[in-house]
């Protein structure tokens, strides 16, 4: 995709000085005119076949479905986060195995809708403003809580530098010392509920007594409970903000701007979100890294051992967008004209291929046995590793196909897919 050189670029002029000055004056005028005219010139490559009115109409409906899916996904995520906040407050009011278990269940349920919304990331949309406060990983848990008893190195123990914990403090400390110095979000909450996963055969096993001032001394239990509450409160606040930005009832929000964009610009964002999640994020950072390193520190939800579910739900979220279909937490369905229909209207075979590949990726992800940290171990022939590898490959294939979709509509997005070599 190299652009051709244009005439206004080249001013190299031969000849003696006086002649050169004269010739230069001429060329300078030519150059200035052509510079000013650059805007009106055709773009670098042949323009794509324009969207017919019919196709633009269909695409516009599909973009509305996309916005509806985003709103439903974030509304579900915020509602589940609210339940999670209630459950952690119940835990700190009356710490017991039962209240800790209930809070953990609430976290797992809160994670059902959210990964399905990750396809709405990666293009400076509403979630990208706050995503680092929501779902950043992998976390260096010792940034939050010291790994050895008696150390004062975590935010929880460090009462000298941080005498009062607040949501503003947690937000300001997030990513302060690098990309794993994470102070808040789903995975910090997960760490606080489960603790370090040091066992091969199960998740972390933090005792409920960590939240009980009767058991954990030095005010640490209370600090931990306050920290947990604040992290959940911050999560809820950010998710509500993103939900409101996609709310069809709120004029002037992002949804309204998104639906007013030229169809091709909005489609570019949709495809960029799908391709970025498929390629670099899910197949790359979340699957290739643990596959290559066999290190459970590199799995997405390492404390609760629920990574297998994240992978399936992320892949499902991409399929949802393509099919224009999302099953809400309460079982109701949001659906409408879909991206696949738009692609199919221009290139039927490509639409079918994408649909088939997305479905194969979801199936491959479902075939990864839980827990994920065991699935990545062993030889490359072990069933777990074969399933992870197959998922990586399936996701890369669909990323390539999404690149073809971008080319079909002449969308300038980079999906980090392998270059097609002649």
């Amino acid at each position, binding site marked *: 995709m190299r652009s051709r050189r244009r005439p206004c670029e080249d001013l190299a002029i031969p000849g003696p000085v006086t002649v050169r000055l004269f010739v230069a004056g001429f060329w300078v005028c030519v150059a*200035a005119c052509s*510079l000013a005219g650059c805007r009106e010139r055709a773009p670098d490559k042949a323009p794509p076949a324009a969207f017919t009115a019919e196709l633009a109409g269909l695409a516009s409906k599909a973009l509305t479905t996309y916005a509806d899916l985003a709103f439903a996904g974030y509304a579900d995520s915020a509602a589940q986060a609210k339940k999670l906040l209630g459950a952690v407050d119940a835990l700190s009011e009356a710490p017991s195995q039962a209240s800790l278990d209930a809070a953990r269940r609430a976290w797992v349920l809160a994670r059902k809708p959210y990964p399905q919304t990750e396809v709405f990331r990666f293009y400076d949309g509403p979630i*990208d403003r706050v995503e680092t406060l929501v779902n950043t990983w992998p976390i260096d848990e010792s940034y939050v809580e010291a790994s050895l008893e008696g150390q004062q190195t975590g935010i929880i123990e460090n009462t000298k530098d941080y005498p009062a914990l607040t949501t503003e403090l947690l937000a300001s400390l997030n990513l302060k010392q690098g990309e794993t110095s994470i102070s808040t979000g789903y995975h910090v909450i997960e760490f606080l509920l489960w603790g370090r996963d040091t066992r091969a055969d199960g998740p972390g096993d933090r005792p409920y007594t960590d939240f009980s001032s009767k058991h954990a001394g030095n005010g640490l239990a209370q600090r931990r409970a306050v920290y947990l509450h604040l992290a959940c409160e911050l999560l809820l606040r950010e998710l509500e903000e993103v939900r409101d930005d996609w709310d069809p009832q709120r004029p002037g929000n992002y949804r309204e701007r998104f639906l007013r964009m030229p169809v091709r610009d909005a489609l570019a964002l949709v495809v960029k979100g799908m391709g970025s999640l498929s390629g670099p994020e899910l197949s790359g950072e979340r699957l290739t890294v643990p596959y290559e390193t066999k290190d459970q520190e590199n799995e997405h939800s390492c404390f609760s051992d629920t990574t297998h579910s994240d992978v399936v739900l992320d892949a499902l979220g991409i399929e949802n967008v393509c099919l224009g279909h999302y099953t809400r937490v309460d079982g109701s369905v949001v659906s409408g004209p879909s991206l696949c229909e738009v692609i199919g209207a221009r290139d039927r075979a490509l639409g079918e291929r994408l649909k088939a590949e997305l479905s194969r990726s979801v199936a491959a992800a479902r075939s990864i046995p839980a827990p994920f940290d065991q699935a990545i171990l062993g030889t490359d022939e072990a069933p777990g590793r074969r399933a992870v590898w197959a998922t990586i490959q399936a996701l890369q294939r669909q990323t390539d196909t999404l690149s073809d979709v971008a080319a079909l509509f002449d969308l300038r997005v980079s999906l980090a897919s392998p270059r097609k070599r002649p």
Partner: protein
Amino acid sequence: MSRAPSLRQPPRASRSRLLCALGSALVGLLALSCRARVKMPHVAESGGDTSVFDATHDAYSLPAPGLSSAHRSAFFVGNSFFNQNWVGAPSSIDSRDGLGPLFNARSCSGCHFKDGRGRPPEAGESLSSLLIRISRPGERGVRGAPLGDPVYGDQLQGNGLPGVPKEAEVKIDYEAVAGTLPDGESYVLQKPRYRCDELGYGPLVPGILMSPRVAPAMIGLGLLEAVPEATLLTLSDQQDRDHDGISGRPNRVTDVVSGQAALGRFGWKAEQPSVLQQIAAAFHGDLGLSSGLFPEQNDTAAEAPARAQPTGGAPEVSADILKAITIYARVLAVPARRNHQDANVSHGEELFGSLGCAACHVPTLRTAELADLPELHAQDIHPYSDLLLHDMGAGLSDERPSFAAQGSEWRTPPLWGIGLVKKVNGHDRLLHDGRARGFQEAILWHAGEAGSARTRFERLPRSERAAVLAFLESL
């Protein structure tokens, strides 16, 4: 306060054509009278076919397109080690312990956040993505290598593991330097002064030389490594022949693997010959992690509490991890320009050439064949750098020679992707110590060999200066 104006839409066509014509005529005559014309590229893909189209806060973090499966895997593995915090030894996770005992940061991403650019601290903050190299005055090592302080070594580390005092807390004061442009616009630059508080291990040698450096962005390093040495040497010779006051010199440094002299390419003074050595040196100096290239710890015998700490193995960074991070750093893609066809931007690009900026910020280089990384092979790239050392004047001098580089000499920093610093890193601080707030201040600090180009910039009418800044924003 003089700040780089934000990018604006160009004025209406008729006015802009007139201004363009007048400006271009003036500049064209100037250019022809004294300088060789540099052909500006006017293309979006600064990294050739390896460019990525992304202007989000991930713009510096994407792999070059078209990687082989093995390099793709190495990229993501390298990325995870680049981002992760290292911990003190011993720990339960052997692959990531060995931090310190003295260190500037716990992770690569601590300074190169989102693979981007560091900045000096805000008031009340400790140094985080700016570090201070130090050396004793008057003495030099092999090939002019700086010699460190006998106690503190060649770099101040502001952090220590529990029980290990940090080396120093560096404080920065800024002195205001006011000036006025020929058209009457006034500006105030800020010149930093550094002092060391809370020295952890006694006094520094008298007259210690200090060189502040912010972390540069990580993009396009493999492409720069792939530019043939002969290309850079030819650029140096050509600049000498022009007699235009510009005379870039290669730095000659030591390849620590072979022990031989090598052309320096990376770092603010081109002190590292390869991406591999740059990374290993940063692990050693900045994180306190040993590797095959630098098997020692970064503390000295005089720093007893540090010496007493256990290490995280020999080496602490395994060959596999070093290799993965090196591949990662070599294939981090250069983001494409956003609006290079905008008339104002395009005009600014021509001005950048005609003012003489492009004499050192060389717009186009070509990569050679790379046996181990064919993905970067034979690309026309647009880094806006010659990777050579230039005298930038007394105002920017750190007065600390390093190999062939004098105190006032700095490597031309690549400008590709620089318009996205604000997006990725949330600040606009430029130059080696981050003293400049925005592009215009950075230009106004240019002196020495770059002095005449700066003067020509200063004499431009305001709208023309804005066009140059708009071009820089577009990169």
